[in-house]
């Protein structure tokens, strides 16, 4: 084989592990990002209530959460670093032609994260050292830059889904307009959906920790506040999120009809299409699905007889893996609906009786809601990313043409799996410690006088 032959062979060998490596690193990072985006607002709200009401339990809660936020932020920063290496290491064929088009939001994101990293440090350090007002003000940049950072990253991802802001002349990129590229049709719906998802993930997860505590009999005010504050935030957001889900689905239908067809397992283009739940897609057909007549046509075109494009509109090699996309989409929507029921339950009880529902079933539901929200979010990302296949830049660049042909690249995947396994274990261990022992310091915090000597001991 000549050199070109070798390179092509390597690229083929690298493609699958590279995709899995990217998926694993992103899927891991995004959980922590959710806390980076949403937790600061929840923490500072609690701190504000604590000062207003002079309530020591609330203050203790806010402090514990601030520490957890520090740990989560550090884990997010660490995993994010690997991501920015991977964009080049795994996908040089994406960065070379398009870096100048969609790299720009990452630069802005860099500033946002920088500001956030600084103020997370200030906020944790300033606990007990600043006046309450100055301390809460120092949290404001965290809230804003977390949100801005999410916007910029999502803008880059939305560009991959709906590329704008450049022209192709003879296969070469010209007239790159990085600002225009940030505001394609997917950017706003994806950003809003992700922002709300971040609040749901953070809210339900934190609440679930206290639900477990209450199920074990710790029903003091501390636990009740710990459950109620994050849960209320998440519960208010859930119905909005489902509305936004409808918006984003319409944007997908309009711009990426093949992805929508895969989400619904729809082969034949047609009118009066039913909405299919569940089922397995084989031989160009979805079998065993529960069908709601006219459902899909109604949702997508707001007309029961509307036309919906199916997978038959493109050649077989341009279709994504339908089962993965359909299943993960159903998981997201299913969990989203279940969380809506939970939110309604809380809302009803609060409206009628001003209290958390008394039955242990409610607490059990809250206890699993955190894992559920995370699963919904991961499923949403799988829908988006796998549904885009085989394109890395929709309708412009194939994933197979973007992967690096460097020999041996695929080995990195195994290393990444091992590293993330260790990292996950450590994160869980430390967070559990934080939950049980409140004097555990966060990474950005000064160590209190007592155990100082121990820090050096190893």
């Amino acid at each position, binding site marked *: 084989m000549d050199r070109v032959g070798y390179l092509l062979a390597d690229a083929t060998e690298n493609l699958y592990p590279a995709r899995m490596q990217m998926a694993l690193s992103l899927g891991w990072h995004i959980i922590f990002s959710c806390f980076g985006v949403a937790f600061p607002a929840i923490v500072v709200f609690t701190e504000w209530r604590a000062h207003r009401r002079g309530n020591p339990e609330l203050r203790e809660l806010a402090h514990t959460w601030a520490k957890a936020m520090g*740990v989560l932020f*550090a*884990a997010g*920063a*660490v995993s994010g*670093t*690997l991501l920015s*290496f991977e964009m*080049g*290491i795994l996908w*040089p*064929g994406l*960065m*070379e032609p398009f*870096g*100048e088009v969609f*790299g720009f939001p*990452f*630069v*802005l994101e*860099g*500033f946002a*994260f920088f*500001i956030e*990293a*600084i103020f997370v*440090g*200030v906020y*944790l*350090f*300033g606990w007990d*050292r600043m006046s309450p007002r100055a301390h809460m003000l120092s949290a404001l*940049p965290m809230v804003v830059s977390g949100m801005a950072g999410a916007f910029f990253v999502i803008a880059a991802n939305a560009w991959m889904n709906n590329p704008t802001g450049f022209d192709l002349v003879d296969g070469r990129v*010209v007239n*790159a*307009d*990085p600002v225009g590229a940030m505001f394609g049709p997917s950017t706003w719906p994806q950003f809003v959906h992700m922002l709300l998802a971040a609040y749901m993930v953070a809210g339900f997860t934190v609440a679930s920790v206290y639900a477990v505590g209450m199920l074990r009999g710790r029903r003091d005010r501390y636990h009740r506040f710990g459950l109620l504050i994050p849960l209320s935030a998440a519960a208010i957001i859930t119905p909005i999120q489902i509305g936004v889900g409808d918006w984003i689905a319409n944007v997908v239908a309009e711009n990426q009809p093949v992805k929508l067809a895969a989400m619904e397992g729809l082969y034949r283009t047609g009118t009066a299409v039913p909405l299919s739940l569940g089922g397995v897609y084989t031989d160009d057909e979805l079998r065993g699905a529960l069908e709601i007549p006219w459902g899909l046509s109604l949702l997508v075109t707001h007309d029961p007889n509307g036309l919906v494009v199916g997978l038959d509109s493109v050649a077989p090699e341009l279709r994504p893996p339908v089962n993965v996309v359909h299943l993960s989409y159903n998981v997201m929507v299913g969990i989203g609906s279940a969380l809506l029921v939970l939110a309604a339950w809380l809302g009803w009880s609060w409206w009628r009786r001003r209290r958390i529902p008394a039955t242990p079933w409610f607490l059990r539901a809250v206890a699993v809601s955190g894992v559920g929200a995370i699963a919904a979010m991961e499923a949403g990302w799988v829908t988006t990313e796998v549904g885009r296949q085989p394109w890395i830049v929709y309708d412009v660049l194939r994933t197979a043409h973007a992967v*690096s042909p*460097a020999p*041996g*690249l695929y080995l*990195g995947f195994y*290393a990444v799996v091992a590293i993330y396994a260790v990292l996950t274990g*450590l*994160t869980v*261990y*430390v967070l559990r*410690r934080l939950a049980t022992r409140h004097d*555990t310091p*966060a*990474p*950005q915090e*000064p*160590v209190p*006088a007592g155990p*100082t000597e121990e*820090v*050096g*001991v*190893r």
Partner: protein
Amino acid sequence: MTLPEAVLGVMFVGLIAYGLFGGADFGAGVWDLLAGGTRRGAAQRALIEHSIGPVWEANHVWLIFVLVVLWTAFPSGFAALASTLYIPLTLAAFGMIARGAAFAFRKSVTGLGMRRFLGASFAVSSLVTPYFLGAIVGGVASGRVPPGIAAGDVVHSWVNPTSALGGVLAVLVCAYLAAVFLCGDARREGTDELAERFRVCALATAAVVGAVALGGFFVLRADAPLLFDGLIGRGLPVIAVSVVAGLVSIGLLATRRYALARLTSAPAVATVLVGWAVAQYPYLLPPALTIAEAAAGRTTLVAMLVALLVGSLILVPALIYLYVLFQRSTATAQHPGVPATAPAESGAPGP
């Protein structure tokens, strides 16, 4: 100065900042590694933890900044670099993960076994990451990264004499910077014995750096003639500044003027990076890809430059605030729960 050069210049400021702040962080890890047995090294490790605890995260974002500017403004250079040098880049990234994770979790665990594991991964990765970053610089500077995706040799691009020199120098320079910064921190916290120990470390490292740098000239002459010519030609004034600043900071260390030694050791290190840039100008990837050839389109570069300027207007005051807050807190450590005698944060190991 052309537009691409301006953007590259701003990126280089970021790289220097990473070299100084991140470098001192890594170096501190090296001293953590060499601190000695569990009991004996405890005080030294505690000081190190105190010095970088609150700021390591901010210090490390500089590298992210360098990467994203590179891939947006010089996409073809970035793609060539990342694909050919993927092995050292991956290993450096793993080092950063190990280090960051150790930092994030070390304080919160108490079991001795776990602490040992995290401490060791912190220390070892403090050697690994600078070595590979230095090796990457060596690979680029000696012309082993051709333009094109994975066009270079994925092994010899970083396993070669210049890369070895770059890696070793990077580790040593980080260790030197850290020792100088820690001298000042130790004295401010009133542990003169530790300050004395770091002073000896700094002086010894300086001697080794000098020896390696001298030997390096012969390595470069044989292995990277183009770079060598640039260094002794256009780069000579920069090298001269570096040597002078280095000697002055050694003199200041010898006479225990730590604050001034900080101020002079920073330019001594920064000029090493500047010397590299000057020597390989006008190439981004010598000897084939120039800065102009690798640059993105005008619209992108203008947008970048505006973003970088506006962004730094927000960023720089915030950073200064962070460092000042931690430095000042030394004087005002009297606080509920924090006895006045507690060694408070000394803040940035910065110049």
